[in-house]
């Protein structure tokens, strides 16, 4: 009987995912477009979705050493399907997917920012498993180990190494309508957006030949799409905040070439209980306080900003985003896409009330064109 129910649920699920007689929507290159009818299934949806063009697993967070030194980190695994006909590959050296990965560490005490990028193709040295979370890019790996615990093993150059485990302090949440986050007016400009807003982070940090125990908190996004932006959009500003009161905030502002925010920009609150409340750009204000110009790329980033609006309970808020250091730009030596992504503090009335990671894209390159 139990089996019969399971099979019944599975069949219903499959039908809803791809209703009989209804072909899934696809892009011109035959990549699937995420739909709002998807029923998420785990651990399957932790893993890769190769029928979609773009996918990423994005970890950002802060941890501290027992001595009090604070560190910010970013670990990103991208999958990007090649255009059909990229060339003849093989199982070990595939030409179906490009796996990009970015790893960064901000050392607040020493005011040092190190990062590394990697490009690999699907095959022996990079893959994203289907069915569960198991990612590799060179010797960088991210895996689910048990239940919802994940392990990251990564290095930056020869002097920085991170071995971290992540355990959810809160359940995962889904942004957008039934997990479908609209990013623009184009039908294909959307993604499935799955997030762990607060992960307890523990592990070791190897730095300059010494290994230290660290602990902190992190944020993880897993997005699946076939086109992230509309044609007129050039980039986005993204912010994730973990407040001390155990609530979280996520914001993305999609910009056009003139710098105007797109109506699809979104502010989302995750309450202490894990409820998600989302609102459009009419309900918040994003004010640039100061900028920083990269000596490397010449791009000018709005790294000091003020965000104001209303909380889910209707009360007003005004927070200031203050980066730990301004030079937290990833230079894009490989793919040519440079962006700023850095550890920040959140200040309210002059007091630090949370930690944040802010991402500023499209200031050095037109990201919209790259992600079409």
């Amino acid at each position, binding site marked *: 009987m139990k089996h019969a129910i399971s099979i019944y649920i599975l069949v219903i699920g499959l039908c809803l995912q791809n209703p009989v007689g209804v072909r899934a929507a696809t892009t011109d290159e035959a990549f699937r477009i995420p739909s709002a009818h998807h029923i998420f299934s785990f651990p399957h949806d932790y893993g890769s979705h190769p029928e979609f063009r773009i996918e990423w697993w994005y970890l950002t967070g802060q941890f501290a050493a027992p001595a009090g030194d604070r560190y910010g980190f970013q670990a990103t695994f991208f999958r990007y399907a090649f255009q059909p006909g990229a060339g003849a590959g093989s199982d070990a050296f595939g030409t179906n997917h490009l796996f990009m990965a970015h790893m960064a560490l901000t050392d607040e005490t020493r005011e040092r920012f190190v990062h*590394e990028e990697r490009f690999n193709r699907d095959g022996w040295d990079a893959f994203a498993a289907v069915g569960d979370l198991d990612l590799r890019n060179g010797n960088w790996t991210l895996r689910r180990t048990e239940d919802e615990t994940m392990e990251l093993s990564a290095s930056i150059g020869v002097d920085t190494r991170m071995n971290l485990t992540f355990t959810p302090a809160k359940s995962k949440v889904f942004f957008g309508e039934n997990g479908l986050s609209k990013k623009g007016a184009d039908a294909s400009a959307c993604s499935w957006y799955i997030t762990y807003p607060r992960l307890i982070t523990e592990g070791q940090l190897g730095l300059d030949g010494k290994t230290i125990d660290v602990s902190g908190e992190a944020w993880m996004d897993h997005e699946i799409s076939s086109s992230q932006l509309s044609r007129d959009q050039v980039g986005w500003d993204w912010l994730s905040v973990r407040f001390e009161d155990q609530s979280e905030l996520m914001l993305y502002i999609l910009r056009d070439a003139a710098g105007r925010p797109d109506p699809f920009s979104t502010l989302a609150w995750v309450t202490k209980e894990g409820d998600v409340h989302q609102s459009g750009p009419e309900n918040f204000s994003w004010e640039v306080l100061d900028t920083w110009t990269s000596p490397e790329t010449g791009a000018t980033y709005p790294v000091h900003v003020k965000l104001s609006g209303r909380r889910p309970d209707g009360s007003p808020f005004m927070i200031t985003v203050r980066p730990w250091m301004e030079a937290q730009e990833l230079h894009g030596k490989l793919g040519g896409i440079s962006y700023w992504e850095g550890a920040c503090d959140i200040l309210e009335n002059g007091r630090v009330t949370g930690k944040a990671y802010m991402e500023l894209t499209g200031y050095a390159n037109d990201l919209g064109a790259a992600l079409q």
Partner: protein
Amino acid sequence: MFRNVRWDMLLTMLRCLSLRHARRAPFSTGAMIAIVALGVAVFFSVRLANRAAISGFQMFANSVSGTSDFVLTGPGSRVPMAELPRLRRAMDPLPVALIPVVEGTATIPGTGKVEGGFDAAQVGVLGLDLLAVRNMVYVRPAQSSITTASDDEFARFDSVYITRALADWLEVQKGDKLSVVLGDAPVSLDIGVVLEPSPLLPGSREKRILVDLPALQKLMGTTDHVDRIEIIVPEGQQSEELYGLVEERIAALDPSVWTVLESDYHVKAGQSMTAAFRLNLTILSVLALLVGLYLILQAMEAAVVRRRGEIGIMLSMGFEPGWIRRAWLVESLLLGVAGSALGLLLGWALAQGAVRAVVRTVNTLYFSTTVEAAGWDWGEALMVFALGVGACVLAGSIPAHDAATTPPVQVLRRQGRGGGVRLPDHPAFGSLLLVVGVFAARMPAFEIAEGAPFPVGGYVAALCWLAGAAILAGRALVFFPKMMAPLMEHDAAWKLSLSQFRHLTGRHKLTVAGLVVAVGMAAGMETLIHSFDRSVTAWIGQALRADLFVAVKGIENASNRNRISERVWQDLSNDPDVERTDVGHIFRIEFRSVPILIQGMRSEDAWGGAGRIWVDPPSGISGISDVPVDGIPSAVVSESFANRHRMGSGEQFEIQTPMGIRKIRIAGVYADYGNEAGTVLMNGELVSRWFNDRRALNLAATLRPGADADAVRQRWIQKHPGLAVRTNRDLRADVMRIFRQTFAVTHALKAIGVLVAVGGLALALFSLLFERRMELATMRQLGFSRREIVKAVVYEGSAVALAGLVGGLLLSIALGWLLIFVINKQSFGWTLAFAVPVMNLAGLAFAVLGAALLTGLGVGRWASLLKGEREE
């Protein structure tokens, strides 16, 4: 020597002695500088050419991705694809880059640029993951420069990168198509990127093609393996520590699966394989330098003679002998500096030609290397410069001593006739040297590197015989008057010239000695080349008997990685016009740390190729297809393998194959002039299985009676345009041409030897007559006509040349024997049949005597015009 030197005094003496002379006799000063320059140039050019030839072995992958710290491969230089993720997991905790590499060769037909006789260029092809290699910009930011490709190019796996050197050579550019033969078929490649040369990318100076790894695997038919994996440790403060950790992890790998190569193993393999060849060249160039030294010594000594008067006057005036010696040495030093500097420039220019000759030889015998120019090397330049200056000072020190120590009265008295330098010239000493040489020739080879023998005894013997013969030939001049006097009893010029040999001067002996050395060297090399030619001709006659020979296009050495696929060789074997085929498979492996070739033959002949020349014929095992009951297969090995590894019939050895360690029993030893590495020849099917590769290197087809070889050839070429199909006649001609190319450098050195001999003769005659200018002027006043003086000089010069020539030719027979049976055999492991090149030696004799005659005429005419009172 220069302690408490009064420099003002030294300068005054230099001004009086040397600079005055240089101003008044610019020609002779220039000639001396030119002599030094020539000696230094020959030595420098050979050194540079050697360096350049070896630099071609450097791994292009290194220059693309940064220098590898470790290189791993598997048995038979193959790493199965399944091992790649295993290696990654084994290395996981370490932030190292793993770079799989496949190497290939592309033949570019129809370039119009004939290379090695083929109208086809062969260039190295490297298969790398064109995407992953871009990560090196983070791993080795200071070294990697592959990321010169722009962003829209990096994801194109179907186009190739070519180096600027190749692009310029073929006159192609980005976006063009490049037609090459890869594997056994022609393919058209899209040029996606032209890699610009840069100090960070030294390999880009060579002609290379960079292809995405899986694409190259498919083209080569080797999708199941890569050739090697290079491990690169990122730059950083912890690199040293990480290096140790990588070593630990590598040590823990399964040794039956992984073999660690040194990161510069290509260079080392190249160095090791060509060590004997390069050393031979260097020694030959040193001999050229030694002959140059002799010329310098002679020229300096002549200068002392010429300025005896001045030296005598200075000594009479109270100048200390020490000052004279110092001034003389400083003059030698200045000549050395000027000559060596000029020699470096000349040598560098010569090297551009020499490098082609060296590379041609290396290409034929060892690997394909596409180096075309020798780069300037400061280390080499300094060393050679120091050697040139040192040699000059050394050469100047003997005459300087002579000038300073002879009492003034004696100096002035001897003005008219100088004794010249006294070298150890006792006949007993010369004979002793010959005997020592005989014993030295019996010494076994000394191993300079593993598997790289150096015939030290052979060279010692050569030196002893050269010196011994030079001494004895000089002494032999004494017998000239008695032997020759009756020939023209009433000829005054004849008598006058013979009278010179009754009181032999050191200069006469030295001239003969120099000629003996130069002629001996040149004729000895000619004998070696001729013997080689004869042996190879005989070998080809025996070995090449089939009607058609098929191979992939390109230079047919073991470094050509293109192979004939099984589909194609089966197709050719089943052609209705074919009676039978011999199909050859070849694999290069490491055996006792040196590369050897495992050759498999599918043949109906007993030992694959009916006409092998046996050094030690097989017995007991009747043929190549036999597998003995004890389970150990038999093989026949080439003579160079047997010599290099000191193994013979009946012995067993083990090799590592992708299928594991395999034992082989030696059934016989055969002569093979095809390669120096050493070949193990055995059953083709067995070898294919061991190396999991059924592709063939070549195929020899015997056609059915009545079949038209040319027609079949045309049919095959049309069907398989990637293959080179030659008729028996064509292949014989090709093989002979290739073998002759291997002696390109030797020919050049031989030519230099002859040039030096003739130059030395001219200089010596000039010097001898200059010294006797007073005597000649007196003879004129006594009634000798100009014509008689010219005749006397011609006779004297010809007699000296004849003595040197006869001595040199006798010496050349001994040297030829030494080169063939000792030096060559110990270096290369080849047995050659001794053959004297009568016609060539006659030509050499004619050249030397002709040069002597012409020089005698010129110098004699000059001497006949001298006036007795003329002062320098």
